[in-house]
């Protein structure tokens, strides 16, 4: 076999790379019980200032403040600062009402000029709370998130260890009633939060303190210069990296649960995830000296962390090159293409089954709501291809009988076309998912858009967002802060 064919086969198999890395990440979850931080925890209640940046959050801010006032935390150790970023709706009035309802516990900080981004808004609040010595810890959260009553105290107990500078919680999708998209996000958060963050605890490097739940010690905020970096779309990730790069430890507390309202429309999801993906590309560039360079002072340079980071960031590239290589192989060595395709998809199906089954067991409560979306996360066609890879004989039997039943036996002769289609699908799935976005606001979009996402896959939709982020960053497109709209659909009983 020529070198060129070997290269193509290698590129095809690289298409399974992200799922193989994800499987490794999930295996580490099973080792989490050996890396727990509880032996260094204590039931402490530092005086905590809660910072909530708010721009036009009238629909959600009142309920969020009420929930905070019901936290299982000493009231005299808690102060809520809502930083009104020059809202134009009823937000200031809601905050004033809450400040009157909870005197000495809720404060309004008003910015006269807003719209400069979340980091600028937070810095306004940080400046205020650092001005006196009351605050021992600061919790940065979003206006729409709802903290379960025990969540804050479950987080603060880690600050008893002086090595720990920051703690984050398990963000769960909490919209009720939800829709197909929020269920996909619900499943995604099991994988990206409950599972991935546990594995990051195991390797000792956390990728991101979730923007909706980041608890910092005062010492950490001061060590960071008392400010959040304003030049990035991923200010929470930058803060997380800087904290760890100075040798401090960051911990994920999986039993502290915070519910967030996530987008129920692809248009809003696309906007949010594009910001995140572009932020991650900016972080990749900003910390380019960190990657794959093990360091005694932190674990961000570990090979494992680098694999986790880049397998997600480069997943669309792996998918496109795998598809392109398969198609090229198809035209120069059809038999080899078929074998490479099988090896790729059998690897994919084993990883998919392990990750899906394990995810649903990691958070069975959420899993009961989202199991259909978990199964269809890669898209219906990908699931069928995986079934064909792992059980070709039964699937062929079923397909032939279905064609006979439908009176379409003549289609059996299109095997080569079907083969080529399946080779292209890995890349094409992103296009179909993108069509789901385009269809959303068109005629019958309410039906066609979800259908296209179920067929193309939610995973491929996220990959399409990452592709868009590549393009935006390459073009150095405007990187202004674009806030996700919230309507107050989170329910604590979720």
């Amino acid at each position, binding site marked *: 076999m020529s070198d060129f064919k070997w290269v193509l086969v290698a590129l095809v198999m690289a298409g399974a790379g992200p799922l193989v890395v994800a499987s490794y990440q*999930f*295996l580490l*979850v*099973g*080792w*989490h*019980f050996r890396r*727990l931080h*509880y032996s260094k*925890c*204590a*039931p*402490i*209640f*530092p*005086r905590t200032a809660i910072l909530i940046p708010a721009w036009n959050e009238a629909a959600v801010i009142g309920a969020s403040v009420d929930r905070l006032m019901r936290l299982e935390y*000493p009231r005299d*150790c808690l102060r809520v600062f809502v930083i009104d970023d020059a809202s134009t709706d009823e937000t200031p009035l809601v905050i004033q009402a809450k400040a009157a309802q909870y005197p000495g516990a809720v404060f309004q900080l008003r910015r006269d000029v807003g719209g400069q981004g979340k980091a600028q808004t937070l810095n306004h609040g940080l400046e205020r709370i650092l001005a006196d010595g009351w605050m*021992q*810890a600061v919790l940065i959260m979003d206006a729409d998130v709802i903290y379960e009553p025990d969540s804050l*105290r*479950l987080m*603060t*107990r880690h*600050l*008893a260890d002086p090595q720990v500078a920051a703690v984050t919680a398990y963000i769960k999708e909490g919209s009720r009633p939800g829709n197909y998209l929020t269920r996909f996000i619900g499943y995604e958060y099991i994988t990206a939060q409950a599972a991935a963050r*546990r594995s990051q605890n195991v390797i000792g490097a956390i990728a991101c303190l979730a923007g909706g739940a980041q608890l910092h010690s005062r010492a950490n905020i001061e060590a960071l210069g008392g400010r959040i970096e304003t030049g990035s779309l991923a200010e929470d990730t930058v803060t997380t990296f800087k904290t760890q790069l100075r040798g401090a430890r960051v911990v994920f507390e*999986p*039993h502290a649960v915070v519910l967030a309202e996530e987008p129920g429309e692809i248009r809003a999801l696309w906007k949010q995830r594009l910001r995140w993906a572009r932020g991650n590309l900016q972080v990749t560039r900003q910390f380019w000296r960190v990657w794959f360079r093990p360091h005694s002072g932190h674990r961000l340079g570990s090979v494992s962390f680098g694999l986790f980071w880049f397998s997600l960031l480069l997943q669309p590239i792996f998918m496109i090159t795998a598809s392109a290589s398969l198609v090229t192989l198809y035209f120069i060595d059809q038999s080899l293409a078929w074998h490479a395709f099988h090896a790729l998809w*059998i690897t994919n*199906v*084993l990883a998919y*089954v*392990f990750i899906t*089954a*394990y995810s649903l*067991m*990691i958070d069975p409560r959420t899993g009961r709501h989202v199991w259909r979306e978990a199964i269809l996360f890669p898209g219906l066609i990908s699931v069928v291809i995986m079934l064909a890879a*792992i*059980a*070709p*004989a*039964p699937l062929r039997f079923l397909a032939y009988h279905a064609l006979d039943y439908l009176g379409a036996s003549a289609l059996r002769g299109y095997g080569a076309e079907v083969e080529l289609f399946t080779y292209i699908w890995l890349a094409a799935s992103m296009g179909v998912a993108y069509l789901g976005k385009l269809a959303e606001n068109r005629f019958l979009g309410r039906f066609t858009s979800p259908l296209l996402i179920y067929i193309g896959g939610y995973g491929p939709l996220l990959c399409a967002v990452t592709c868009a982020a590549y393009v935006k960053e390459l073009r150095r497109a405007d990187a202004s802060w674009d806030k996700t709209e919230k309507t107050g659909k989170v329910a604590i009983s979720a």
Partner: protein
Amino acid sequence: MMPRESRPPSSFDDEVRSAVSYEKGLAVKALIALAIVAVLIAGRLLGF
């Protein structure tokens, strides 16, 4: 200044025990998920 400590230690210990138990359970669940994968591999090798 040291942060205030006001929760009864026994409750804290119970919570930690419960969390550790949950995390150990995740190790068992990982083995179950791996067993499902093993069954798939066996099925494939046996000629499905």
